[in-house]
């Protein structure tokens, strides 16, 4: 979807403001939200793509006015309710009012923590040869999916060069469309800034995206 989350190149957000000696969390609840999100995702009801799409679905003004972990919280609650893991009356009560649904993987326990602390693998066997090779000039398609995609708007319609090939990976667009992992070749495609932003752009800037094969076409 063409949402406010797709921020590359947007003006008006002000200066970057690094915080010296920043703690892992600024408030206690932020850590709880992060940990809950990781734990719930590990239950296997939804995956990371759904987690990302859930944040994209927040109304634009909510996205822009909520802190990072508040966005996570709102997303997680929304998904919990949508998937029927909790219900609105329970949130109002602050307690469970009925038994939990049975989870195939059971309760997320202390012993499960180590597993979620290392990022999973998204590489999958390819079902076809790669259409592009390193050095190919490719155009990022001008597509505007109404659901989740990982092709940022600023790259769409623009021509770049294939720089790396990462094998076939789980394709987020398909996961969120309910079509399963649908593995696709993943490329690093490098663009000149002047191709992306016009003649006034920094002549010594190159920007790359990680592009799934369905995002690309031969020039």
């Amino acid at each position, binding site marked *: 979807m063409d949402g406010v989350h*797709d*921020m*590359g*190149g*947007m003006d*008006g957000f002000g*200066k*970057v*403001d*690094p915080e010296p000696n*920043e*703690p*892992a*969390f600024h*408030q206690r*609840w932020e*850590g*709880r939200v*992060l*940990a*809950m999100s*990781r*734990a*719930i995702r590990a*239950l296997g009801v939804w995956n990371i793509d759904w987690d*990302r799409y859930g944040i994209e679905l927040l109304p634009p003004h909510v996205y*822009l006015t909520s802190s990072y972990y508040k966005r996570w*919280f709102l997303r997680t609650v929304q998904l919990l309710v949508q998937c029927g893991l*909790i219900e609105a009356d329970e949130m109002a009560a*602050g*307690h469970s009012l009925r*038994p*939990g649904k049975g*989870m195939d993987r059971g*309760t*997320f*326990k*202390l012993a499960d*923590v180590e597993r979620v*602390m*290392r*990022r999973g*693998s*998204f590489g999958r066997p390819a079902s076809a040869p790669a259409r592009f090779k390193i050095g190919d000039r490719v155009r990022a398609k001008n597509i505007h999916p109404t659901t989740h995609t*990982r092709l*940022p708007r600023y790259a769409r319609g623009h021509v770049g060069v294939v720089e*790396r090939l*990462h094998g076939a*990976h789980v394709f*987020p667009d398909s996961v969120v469309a309910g079509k399963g992992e649908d593995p696709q070749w993943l490329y*690093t495609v490098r663009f000149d800034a002047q191709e*992306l932003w016009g003649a006034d*752009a920094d002549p*010594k*800037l*190159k*920007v*790359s995206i*990680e*592009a799934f094969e369905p995002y690309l076409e031969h020039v």
Partner: protein
Amino acid sequence: MELRVRAIETILVEKGYIETAALDRIIELYETKIGPHIGAHVIAKAWSDPSFRQSLLDDASKAVGTLAQVGRVGDHLVAVENTPEVHNMVVCTLCSCYPTDVLGLPPTWYKSFAYRSRVVKEPRAVLADFGVALPAETEIRVWDSTAETRYLVVPMRPAGTEGWSEAQLATLITRDSMIGAGLPKKPREVA
């Protein structure tokens, strides 16, 4: 927020989905174990050991996994090396993808709208916000982490560090320098 979050956690625990101790442990690990010191260890090794450096650039997940002090990290880690000609910077314009396995949780600025929006268009202005000025002739290469690949910047080893141990070198390597928003410290800064 504290109360709202606590209510949800209570419900999830009561329903048997999650265990409180598991959440405590995740938080503890991020607060105490998983942070930029891991990345600094990797970079110091790369600065010290040319064959490790090459392995790291060839397949960072594999190379990092060979370090006894780090152990296995997630797949798809990619190391990109700064040179006098090219300065690398990492961003996730769409959300907040970050090499947590080697750097811990991303700082707030990395997740900020300002960084996400600006670095792909005006990285030199962003670097100025960090007090960093690069020569105009240095190419800037921004890596937008739009998939599950994760980028780690290998900064340039500062001059005047000949003969330093890996442990000494690691003290120069800041988190920001491994994202490309900063440079390593100079030897006199850690003297």
